[in-house]
Structure formats: structure tokens, C-alpha cells
């Protein structure tokens, strides 16, 4: 397949990917037993089979921090053939759930990895954070100032998994928060020339589109002054999300294809937004690229936010062969952010 001429920035390359999911998968039966949520309801309305938690479901003890998971994923990416940890010149981490507001989690990750004297960035963002991190890394490499960087995405959503709460009488909109999410992290090494996996990052899209629009999702944080406020920590407008995300996803797909000058039938793989098993299936249908193989993971990993694109890429790389093309679509419904990226294996 010939390389299409695009208006995008100079190409950078994915040399390797690593992911980390904490502990053993938690299935719906276990979740329903611990939380008292109907197992069948989870399967039918959410469609997520398993997820992973950094917090022990039995004891509530935190077993892994976000930094632990991110470092674990990064270590795997750095251990891959064709990658040299000493060449890492910067780190960009995307997350919505940092361990602490300060120091930024990315610095603990650097510490665990033994990396020093390099720029580190942390992007505060939800589902689009990983794509934003890829975008920043791509620009840094395109600047010519850096050649190799580490991109990480991860979230520990189980911070809001209140095991003490009795949810038997809770409304579905409230229940969703308990069954949708999971924890995890992913990482990729980006290089200026093809190495390792040698997958070209053809285009990255990041766009705020939420001017004047109420957020579809809010995660609060509490300080000493407002720690006892009776505010909900996690708020989602599921109606708005169900309505808008599929539309946005379709727009992202076509905008990206246009930018890349790719035809839809030239796509070998499609990485759709990973909201939940059920929503992702619905969005994939609406995206309607039957020639492309769907690469999804959320039904098995749960929605672990910024880890998702890396989990998808990891799955993609298992089967992608030379000349094949993939396109990923992500939507962050907090303040309606469109995101996506395109990959082509050399």
C-alpha cells in the first residue's frame, strides 16, 4: 500500500507498547456479590464482562497506585525489542485520576523507572488524555529537538468505588458508576524513525468542541475546606452521552479519513471509543466500516479511561501486518473533546 500524502506533522513511530492491569479480573458475579447489583442487569445494560481494580474488593486496601500501574506498563514497553530505556528523552502522561495533585504522578513514574533529567508532562484529561499525550509527544519529536519519548495513559477509577455503600436501592444512573469502570495503564515508546514495532503514527486529532455546553461528565476533587460537602464525586449525564458520543465518533472518523486522504475501505482496523461493552458495540455499528476489523477491549478490561487506547493498540499489534492501516476514535464527554489517531504499520 502506498503512503498517502497528508497535511499532518512529520511522522513519528510507535516502537513498542506495554500495558498493566491490576490483579485478577473481577467478573460480574463477584461484583454483584460485593455490591449487591443485579448481575443480569450489568450484562444486558452495560455489556462489560470483567474489569480490574487496584483496590482489593474484599478489604478495600489499595494495592497499586496509579504510578505503580503506569510504571509497570512503561517498563513493559521499555523492555521490548528495539527500544532502549536510556534513549527516553521525555515522558507525557495523560490521566484523570492522579495519585496526588502534587507531585504530578508522571514524576513518580519517572522515579520508578530510573529516568532522570528529562522533561515530564502530565495532561489532566479523561478518555482523550492518552490521545492528547500522543499528540504532545508527536509534536515534540516533530520539532526535531527530541527523538524518543515515553507516552503513558492510565487511570485508577476505583478511588470512587465506595465499598461501604449500599446500592441496592440506587437508580440505574448511579449504579452505572459502579460497574462501568476499571483501573489500568498503558504506555508506548514513540521514536523519530521506525524501530521495534515500526508503526507510523500518521495523524493525531485533539479538539475541544464543548463551547457553551454543559459537561457530560464531572469528577470532583475535595480539599480540606470542602471535604465534607455533600457533593457527588462522580456525575455523568448518561442521556447526553448516549446521544452525542455516537454522532461525534462518526464525525471524528470522517474528519480523520479526510485529513489522511484515506478511503474508509482502506481501513484494516477500527479502534472505536470504549465506553462500555454495550455502548461500544452500538457506536461501532454507527461508524459502519464493515471492511475494518473492530479492535475493542472494554468488555474485558472495563472502562479504565486513559489506559484504553493502549490496550487497544496492544491488541491491534498482535495482528497488524506490514502495510495495514488502523484508525482510532475517542470521545471525552466531560467537556466534549474529540480525539483520534491513525496508525500504519511499515
Amino acid at each position, binding site marked *: 500500500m502506498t503512503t498517502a500524502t497528508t497535511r499532518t506533522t512529520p511522522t513519528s513511530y510507535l516502537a513498542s507498547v506495554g500495558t498493566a492491569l491490576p490483579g485478577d479480573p473481577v467478573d460480574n458475579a463477584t461484583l454483584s456479590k460485593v455490591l449487591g447489583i443485579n448481575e443480569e442487569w450489568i450484562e444486558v445494560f452495560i455489556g462489560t464482562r470483567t474489569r480490574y481494580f487496584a483496590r482489593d474488593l474484599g478489604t478495600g486496601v489499595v494495592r497499586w497506585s496509579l504510578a505503580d500501574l503506569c*510504571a*509497570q506498563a*512503561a*517498563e513493559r514497553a521499555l*523492555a521490548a*525489542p528495539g527500544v*532502549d*530505556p*536510556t*534513549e527516553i*528523552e521525555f515522558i507525557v502522561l495523560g490521566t484523570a485520576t492522579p495519585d496526588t495533585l502534587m507531585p504530578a504522578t508522571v514524576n513518580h513514574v519517572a*522515579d*520508578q*523507572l*530510573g529516568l*532522570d*533529567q*528529562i522533561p515530564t508532562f502530565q495532561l489532566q484529561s479523561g478518555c482523550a488524555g492518552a490521545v492528547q499525550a500522543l499528540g504532545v509527544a508527536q509534536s515534540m519529536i516533530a520539532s526535531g529537538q527530541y*527523538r*524518543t519519548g515515553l507516552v503513558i495513559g492510565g487511570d485508577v477509577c476505583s478511588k470512587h468505588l465506595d465499598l461501604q455503600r449500599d446500592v441496592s436501592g440506587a437508580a440505574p444512573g448511579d449504579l452505572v458508576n459502579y460497574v462501568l469502570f476499571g483501573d489500568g495503564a498503558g504506555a508506548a515508546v514513540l521514536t523519530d524513525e521506525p524501530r521495534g514495532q515500526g508503526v507510523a503514527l500518521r495523524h493525531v486529532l485533539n479538539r475541544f468542541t464543548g463551547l457553551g455546553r454543559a459537561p457530560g461528565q464531572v469528577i470532583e476533587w475535595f480539599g480540606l475546606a470542602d471535604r465534607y460537602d455533600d457533593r457527588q464525586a462522580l456525575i455523568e449525564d448518561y442521556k447526553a452521552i448516549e446521544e452525542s458520543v455516537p454522532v461525534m465518533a462518526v464525525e471524528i472518523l470522517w474528519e480523520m479519513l479526510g485529513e489522511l486522504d484515506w478511503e474508509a475501505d482502506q481501513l484494516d482496523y477500527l479502534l472505536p471509543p470504549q465506553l462500555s461493552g454495550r455502548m461500544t458495540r452500538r457506536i461501532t455499528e454507527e461508524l459502519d466500516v464493515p471492511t475494518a476489523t473492530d479492535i475493542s477491549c472494554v468488555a474485558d478490561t472495563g472502562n479504565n479511561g486513559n489506559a484504553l487506547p493502549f490496550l487497544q493498540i496492544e491488541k491491534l499489534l498482535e495482528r497488524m501486518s506490514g502495510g495495514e492501516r488502523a484508525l482510532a476514535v475517542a470521545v471525552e464527554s466531560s467537556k466534549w473533546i474529540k480525539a483520534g489517531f491513525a496508525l500504519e504499520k511499515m
Partner: protein
Amino acid sequence: MEPVAIVGIDCRFPGAPDTGAYWDLMMRGADGVGEVPRQRWDAKEFHSEAGEEGHSNTTQGGFIADPDAFDDEFFTISPREAAAMDPQQRLLLQSAWRAVEDAGIAPRNLAGTSTGVFVGIMGNEWAQLHLTDYANVTAQLGSGNGYCMTANRISYHLDLKGPSLAVDTACSSSLVAAHLAVNALLSEECDHALVGGVNVALTPALSIFYTQAGLSAPDGRCKPFSAEADGIGRGEGVGVIVLRRLRDAIADGQRVYAVIRGIAVNQDGRSNGLTAPNRWAQQDVLGAAYRRAGVEPSDVVFTEAHGTGTGLGDMMEVKALGHHHADRAGKPMALGSVKGNLGHTEGAAGIAGLIKVALSLHHRVVPASRFAAKESKQLKLRDHGLRLLKAPLRLPAGPTVAGLSSFGMGGTNAHAVLESAPGHAARPEPVNGAAPGGVGAAVFTLTAPNADALRRNLLAQADAAAARRVPLGPLARSSNRVKAGHRHRFATAATDTGELVARLRESAAAPELLDRLSGRPAGRPRIAFLFTGQGSQYPRMTAGLYEQSPLYRHFLDEADAALLPHTGRSVRDLVLAGDAAVHSTRWTQPALFAVGYALGRTLMALGAHPGMLLGHSVGEFAAAVLARALPLDGAARLVAARGALMQELPPGGGMLSVKASREDVRQWTEQEPLVGLAAVNGPTSTVLSGDLEALERIGAKLAAEGFTTRELQVSHAFHSPLMRPVLDRFAKIAAEVGGGVPEIPVYSTVRGRVLDGEALDASYWVEHIGATVLFGDAATALLAEGPTHLVEIGPRPVLSGMVRRLDQPAAGAGPAHVLPVHGPESAGPALAEALAELYRGGVEPDWDAVYAPEDRVAHPLPPYTFSTEHRYWARNPVRAPGTAALATAPAAHPEPGTAPASVLTLDRPGGPADPVADAVLGAVRLVGGYTDVGPHDRLYEDLGFDSVMIMELKNRLEARLAGIGTLTVQDLLPRLSSVGDLVAFLRELGATVTGSVNFGTEENRALMEEERTA
């Protein structure tokens, strides 16, 4: 020139007890300089602010911590010899060991090689203090002093046979030593070279000299190229690096810190003065090094300067550098010197700089130069194409070239050009990548000379593994390769780093656990493989292992492929799918064969080579293949046919296990023609087989006699007369397959003994079908040969229990039972733990097979942590002749003469009233300077005796003992294996004790006196 790689580093500098701390010190811009410790000399006594005659203008300097600590036991050096050794020798010896480990090499593996040792050293103050006291010059004092011995001692203790020399060119000594080492490597005089540098300040002599020469900084700090530079401050240190030709390092997959591209040495010749720096000679040596390296000056990104911080010295150095760099294009060259952090470490200055440059290239950042912020305007660095490193300089990706200068006071100049390691060498490619490997878990190992050392080092490893994320496979593999060679072997299986860290800490804390996870193999292990027979199978047997271990997968696939033409369906798939058909003998037999073959081959690939084989009934086929008596294909065909033919037999047969002897059951089987004695598993454990109705009749009668019986869940009556119908057809196939004499002894369950030149051929396998399985006899014969390990090869342990019931050894523990598969839940960790157990028992595994190819990369581990319990120090220099004490740590060395008696009573061979033993132990103690010596201690291996000490021991024995006449060394030598042996010998001669019973104590006092004045 051909590039030379720096592959190992160890060092200690002021404020930095190890390499990691040295790097941190530099990156923090920290100060290693402080007050002269009381232990060295009384700084006030020699201090004069004005620098009067015989005085120094400073009380400060860069001193290392704990220069007196030395792990003499590790090197089997006697305390007395250790006390007589220049601390520079002791520090170098420990550092050399650690540097070799840091290079990813078990130091014992270098023994006997032509490895060279090149040590730069200029301080000889210990000798000046000790060898001038002529009345007290002892034999030990001679070898412990004189810097000529520093390199030789490393060569001696590590058994290195290449060039070994100490170099003294004053302050450039250790970089000149590196120059000689590089040349020795390039001329192939040696394949590994250790380069060391050391400096310990024991007297104020050089401080006084610097002051009198107008070169001493009043604050004791070098301030290189700074406006505040006002002279030299003295510093201490020790550093050792390991060098190899780059191509060799890459071929061996070693981690490369940096590469020496070129190095040159020259002399000022008849310059302005013997000690005056000479810019012309310096610029020449720079040019020579650049030429040898094949680089342009403008390629050099930064240079570690000699930079003593004296006005003239810094000026000359800048001018010499300026000659090459003043007109360079692009950025000025970055310049700094670690002397700002440490002071001038004199003989160790070259190695301090070399390690700094190597670490900078390794970490890709150059530390800031201390005191650089106030740059000297007079030096006009910019005009010379130079800039001072006022902040750390992050190096860009790709190759970086750096320079390093070291200039000697007498005019011997050295310069080296280094480069960052080539990308593929900084991160080695997996070694031996093609061979299949991986057991599904890692085995971490560590060895040490004693349990205390084991604990200390387990904790050091745990701390390092917990400090940051480390990949388990490479970490464990490096522990296997590097931490080998000592008597106490620790081994544990692990599946992730966190689990390993916890296990190491637990082991260090809990003596029972440490005991269980460590071993002291006495001799060569003798391994027996026992293969299980029918009855041990179950659906999904070894499935976990198959999923987790690529190595096991490889061999099970191999067996499956061999069986497939004969079984028509994949036995592997049938087993893994959990098909209950595995209990039909058609599938049971090939399935067990496949598992037995795969597990046996897996263990052999891991380095567990059996010296004896035994297979229970059908287990004998896998044993025959491993013994190379049957080819895999042939055995597969036989087993498949055997299973299929037996499956065709009509139902109605069964087996009955009886708790009775073969004699007890014989009368019953003789009455029933359709029942045979199928197996004799032990003295009171037999199995009958045959027609079900007949078995029922026998069973009732046996029960009436009070014997316990149990019906076995089998499809057919194996090893019974009911098997006769298959014999002809099986014989035809067996004749086609053939079979040879086993190359590994096979203990046959057909014969009940080891096969003696007998072939495992067609007639054997035909007989095998109907013959009684004489497991008890075969196993008894096997046990009589003294195996150290019985490894049970099968999907679950069956035979180990049978053997335990057989084996009632009169004394001793008997063989260890090793179970690579415990049962249905077993997977990689159980196999790894089995290998760990074999290693603890003395087996030398083929470690690479334990790890998947991608894990076969070098991973740096913290080097050996030495004991700091024992301390040795010199008397302090004073102005006037006077007394000085031999200071030793009270905890480690209680007053000789009082403590030993109580210690020795613990294991004195002849009990409390054995004056001959007392006298001998006392003499050994005195000669070695030990406080604690027992009869089991070996004079050479444990106590570090040498010929000089043996002579002294002989004299002391003659003085203490009567009735032994004149001892000759020739008589004594054969009887010196242990102290106890020596006592026995002297008793044989008829030795009695002369003089008072308190002789030992008296003599101890005498020794004390002797050493006080030593």
C-alpha cells in the same frame, strides 16, 4: 584504535560509599569534604593558618568513611594478616570483587584467566608508618605494605594470571594505569583488565607539602576554574573498573557504560621545573589522544579536566585545551572537574574522573562542576572555546564524545577520549536467542560464604529490587550468573518482583525459612528420574505448565508430533481439552509417555542430568528414550500400539492393591490361573491383576486373613495373564522398532535391578507387558547406589511415597524428593521451585533455559555487600616517637587472652580436659590472630594460612608441646586439612603439653605486646 568498553564499575569516594552514591553526590553538586577524622591524625596538632614550617594551612579534606572495615573472612585472610595490610590493599580488593560482579561476571569465573590488573597508586603512608619500626617488622607486614603488592594481591585472591602491576606517576597514576590496561587488551595480552586507583591519607605529610609549596587551599577544597580557586584540598577514594575489547563485550551481551576510543600518555621532559605544569606537553597529549581516537577536537562535547584549582595549573590546562578548541565551530566545549566535590584524590584522581565520565555518558547527563558558578574571569574560558559546567548538561541522543585529563606532578600527562556506548551495547541484545526456553517462573539465586553474609546480601538485593521497577527475568538470570560460587546457596522461585522482594526479606528475617531455601552441597549431586505409570494420569494434566512454560511446551509438542502418526489424534489436545478419555488405556499410555518424555527432557534442558533412570511399568518407555535406548519415534509407535492393543481386549479385568508381601499373596495367585502378580511396589505392597471374578474371590480370602485390599480404577488387567492375546501383534511391531542398550543406567521394573548391558529391545518390551512390575526391587537397587535427588517425572507424585515407604536408611537424611509437578494446580512456579531445590543441592543448572529468549539480557545487580564487622587500623602519626595502639573494633575482637577460652570450649575435640588440643588451637589462634577457632576449621580454606604462617605455627607447636621431637614441615603438610586433623596427628606422635596450663593466655599477652608495638 579498537574501542575498549568499560563494563564494570565500583568505587568509594568522600561522601559516597558506592557507585550510585557517587553519581548522586555529583548530580546534587554535593560537598564530600570535611574535617580530618580523629582516626587519621590530630588535625589541630599540624595546623597553622599561616602555613608555618611543618604545618598545614587546613584541617579539612575529603575522607572516605569506614576505611578500617574489611571483610577478611570473605577473602580468607587471617585477622593478623588483615591488620598488617595497608588499608589501600583492603579497599582495592573489595572494590575489585564488586567491579567484576558489576560487569555481570561471577568473580570465580575469572579465576585462572589471563585477566590483567593495573592499579594506580601514589600514597605509601602505611609503609612509612610501619616499616620504619624495624624491631617489629613481621612477615605479614612485608606483604601488607609497599604499593607493589596492591595489584598483585587482587591477582592473587581472584586468581588472575594476566599482567599485574602498580603504577606510580603521582597524580596521573590511575589514568596511566588505564592506558597500560587498554594497550594490554589491544595487544591481546589479556581479555579482561581491572583498572584501579586508590588513595587513603594516613599522615598529614602531603597537606604540609602542599602548604609549604603554596598549593594548599585553606578550606581544603579544590575550586576548579573558579574565581575563588586558591589551591588544592586532599581527597581519598578507591575505584576499580573492568575493561574489555568492545567487540568481546558486545559478543557476550555485557552492559557497556562507555567506550574508550583513545588514550595517550606523555611527559613534560626537561620543562620549567620538575613539578611545574607544562601546557605544551599537555596540548600534545590531548592531540595524541584525539588522533588515536580518530576524533576532531570539535567532536568532543565535554571534558573532565584535571582541574586542581591552583592558579597556574588551571591556567596551563585551559591554554592547552584552548589550543585545540579555541576556534571550534558551534558551542564551546563543556568543562568541569569532580575535584570540586571530592578534593584531589591523587593516585585515585584518574579513576575518579574516568568513572565520572563513564557514568555521565551512561546516564546521558554531565553533572555540574562545583564552584563553577563563580567562574574565573582571568581564565577567559570563552576565548579558549570552553565553558564551565554551571548546571548539569543533558546529552542528546546518539553518540557523544568526551575527554578526560589527568596530569602528574612529575610531568607524566594522560588524556583519554571516551564515547557513549553504541546503542546496541548500552542495552544488550538477548543472548542465545534462538534456543527455546522459559519455565514460566524465575529462579533467584544468591551464594555467600556463610549464613550472615547470605542474610546481608539478600537484604541488599531486596532493597535494590524494591527501589524501582525491575524486570524479574533479567534480574533473576543475572543473580544466577553473577551471584554464584560460594558455599551457601540460596534459591527461590518467583513470578513477580514484588513477591521476590518480600521473599528475600522474609528469608533474611526468619532463620527457618532461610534454612529451607538454602543449602550447602557437600559433593556432586547424583540425580535419579522416576517416571510414573498408569494411574497417575488425569484430564488436563500439566496443562498449567504447558501454558506457562515454552520449554515444556516445546518438548510436549515434540512428543505429540511423534505420537500423532500412530494415535491419529493429538494426545496433547486430548489432554489439554480435559477429555476424560485420558483414562482409557488407549490414551492413558501415550499421554503419560508424552508427559514423561516432555518433563524429563525439560529438566535435562535445564541442566538436571540424571545418572539413573527408573520407570514404573509404562513409565519405562520415556525412561528408555532419555537413556537413548529407544528413539522418540520408535518409542511413540510402541506406546501407541501397546495402548491401542490393550484397549481392544474385552472388559472383565481389574486390579487389586493388597497390603501384603509377595509371599503372602503367592498361594492365592497360584490357585487362580487368570490372576497374576502385577506389581511388587514394596515389602508389603503388592498389586494383583486379572479376571474380575477371580480377583473378587482372592480379595474376600485376603480380607478374611486381615489384609487390607483396594480395587484400582483401571480399564484392564495390566500385567496379568489376560494380556496374552496382544503379545503376538505387539511383538511384530516391537521387532520393527528394535531398541538398544541404555546409555544411562536404567533400573528395570521387569528385572528388579539395573540393566547390565541388556538391550531394551523387542523381547524386553514383549516380556514387559505380562511381567510383574518389580518396582520395590528396582527402587531398592537404585537407592543402594546413593542418589542425592529423586526427581519424580509424572503428572502427580506417586512413586516418591512408595520410595519413602521402602527407604529406611540407617542414618542420614537419604535422597531429597524433588517434585516438578505437584498435581492439577502445578505450573511454572512448581517446576522453578524444583530447579531451585536441585540447585541448592549442588546441581549446576543451564540457567538460560529457565528464561524466555527476551529475558536473556544482562541486568545490573548491586555487587556483594561486605561485612563491616571487622576493623583494622594503624597507629596515628604523631610528632615525636611514642606508643600507638592497634585499634580494633571491640565487638569483633574481644581482648585476646580472655575471650577465646570460653569460645573454644564449645567444640573442643577432646572435651574440656584436652591440653594438646588446647595448645594447638591456641597456637593456630595466635598465628592467625583469630579469637574463635574450632577443630573443623580448615587451615587453608577457612583460616587463610600460607607458608609463612605454617612455619610460625610449627615453631609455636614445638615450643608448646613435648614428645613430638623436631617437626618438619614435610611431616606437617599432609596433616593440615583441618585443625582437628592436626591435633590428631600430633597426638599420634605422642604429644604432651609443656609448661603451665595458662601458656596460651601468657602467649596471647605476648602477642598483644608484639602487636601494640607493631
